[in-house]
């Protein structure tokens, strides 16, 4: 399958869904008139435009002649369609950092982040990841908490 085709299709679908959702949410906002716009006026117009463009993209992606005219790329199968490992590794690490930072302090939270984010690489080397985690934790606490005075607790307790 040509990349161009499903990229257009996917993007169109995404824009359509976001546009419709925005219309759905904004339908209760007072609309107003052109000379006295309510809070719903601009959002409804923008969301409708987005949904419309999405529709055009989806329809266009199904017209073969149109796709052929545009640049085409061969899908050589080397790159995954969706890099699940990287997505879960990176975003998981970031989200858990967000959940823990207020409770355990920067020193521990950064170790957790590095250890979890390490899983997004295929060859997980435990020793290497742990060493990186400890080094980065020390560096960040030193640099941000003591060096730049970023108001974040370094440890879950006070010395």
């Amino acid at each position: 399958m040509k990349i161009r085709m499903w990229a257009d299709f996917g993007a169109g679908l995404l824009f359509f869904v976001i546009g419709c959702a925005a219309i759905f949410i904004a339908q209760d906002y007072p609309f107003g008139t052109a000379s006295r716009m309510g809070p719903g006026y601009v959002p409804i117009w923008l969301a409708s435009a987005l949904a419309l463009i999405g529709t055009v993209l989806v329809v266009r992606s199904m017209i073969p002649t149109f796709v052929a005219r545009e640049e085409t790329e061969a899908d050589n199968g080397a790159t995954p369609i969706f890099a699940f490992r990287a997505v879960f590794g990176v975003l998981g690490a970031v989200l858990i950092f967000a959940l823990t930072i207020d409770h355990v302090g920067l020193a521990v939270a950064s170790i957790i982040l590095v250890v979890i984010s390490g899983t997004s690489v295929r060859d997980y080397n435990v020793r290497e990841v742990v060493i990186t985690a400890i080094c980065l934790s020390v560096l960040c606490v030193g640099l941000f908490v003591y060096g730049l005075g970023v108001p974040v607790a370094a440890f879950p307790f006070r010395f």
Partner: protein
Amino acid sequence: MELFQSLGLGLSVVLTPMNLVYCFTGALVGTLIGVLPGLGPAATVAMLIPITFTLPPDSALIMLAGIYYGAQYGGSTTAILVNLPGESSSIVTAIDGYQMARQGRAGAALAIAAIGSFFAGTVATLAIALFAPPLAEMALKFGPAEYFSLMVLGLVTAIVLAHGSILKAVAMVVLGLLLGLVGTDVNSGYQRFTFDMIFLSDGLSIVAVAMGVFGLGEIIANLGHSKERAVYASKVKGLWLSRNDIKRSWKPIIRGTALGSLLGILPGGGAVLASFYSYTLEKKISGTPEAFGKGAIEGVAGPESANNAGAQTSFIPLLTLGIPSNPVMALMIGAMMIQGVTPGPEVISKWPELFWGVIASMWIGNIMLVILNLPLIGIWVRLLTIPYRLLFPAILLFCCIGVYSLNNNAMDIVVASVFGLMGYIFFRLKCEAAPLLLGFILGSPLEEYFRRALLLADGNPINLLVRPLSAVFLATAVGMMILVLLPLFRNAREKAFQE
């Protein structure tokens, strides 16, 4: 001479020990992070904005400007040595720069990039000092209709300059505008798209959005779709240029600087266009066009100067109109607002120390870059040889701490991760993210000016066209849209971005 008086005022602001330190630190840290593969200036600036919060406004902006051109310069280094352009404006540099590196002439490529950038930076600084004040004066007379039309023009330029499908770029701008409306409506106090969450009532944080799309999204893309890359690090030996190199380069540098200074002013991202045009121009007028793509020094000298000049003059629309011309300038607006400075034509008269200080600092910063980069190139090279699997946790951690320290609110990190996912999806769907960010920063002001303009015009949009300047802006926008859709221009544009 008023110009020299003003520049003198600027220099007196920069040449205080404190501000010199901030300028130097900005350039150094910007280069340090910009050198890291896969991190462009936007992600670098987003990451480092929180560090500048505690500084006074002039120091903060001086440091951020330093970070910006440091990152820009660092990106060129990566483009030359690893063929991995950190952002679109160094794509062109990578073509011949990487070939030079493969031939063992990485040193010469880096040196000419530094010299070209410095020359371009100097000229562009003067250009800003010359053109910004009259432009700001003109902008003071703008009403809501003019502002609305100008913003539309800026967004259309961003669409035209985006890679790939125009339709997708339009959609990204519209989506950005919608995202910009999240939060409390200024006129009615109505909560829009907040899902009853208090932290959303102030709107989404631009740093969190930029960090997600440009930082986290890029990291995921790099990890998931890593390409083989070879670092031509060991081959950086002599930084000296031969007499022949200089003879071949000085004209491209001057031409590139002129092109870059002009195109950089365009709202919508002139730096990319400038470096590309400079490359095409040099290739066209060169006696040996076949040498291009195989390591022609002109192909590094011209575009590098153009890109740096464009990067500097892109401050003009920011400082005089309050309109960002690229994602980094959008972030600058965010930083200025946090500092209590409203970007726009009043900046020059209300905060002259800040305005002239920032401009003078650009020149000082460019000197620092040359002094800093040429001797330190060995360190940057070593940084490039660190495997990505060890590097990315550090980048990730810095991103998280940066976003968190915005408001000491962990929810900002959650927002960033949502936009990280979005950024990666956009990457896979071949939607460029820069128009989204420009739309995002302009969403709320665009709505505000639109409302006011139509209120004054009794709801009749024709009145936007009665005001001459507003009509010119809108006509230019429409003209550009039509031009880009014409088959002839369309093919040229697609070919241009493929090179």
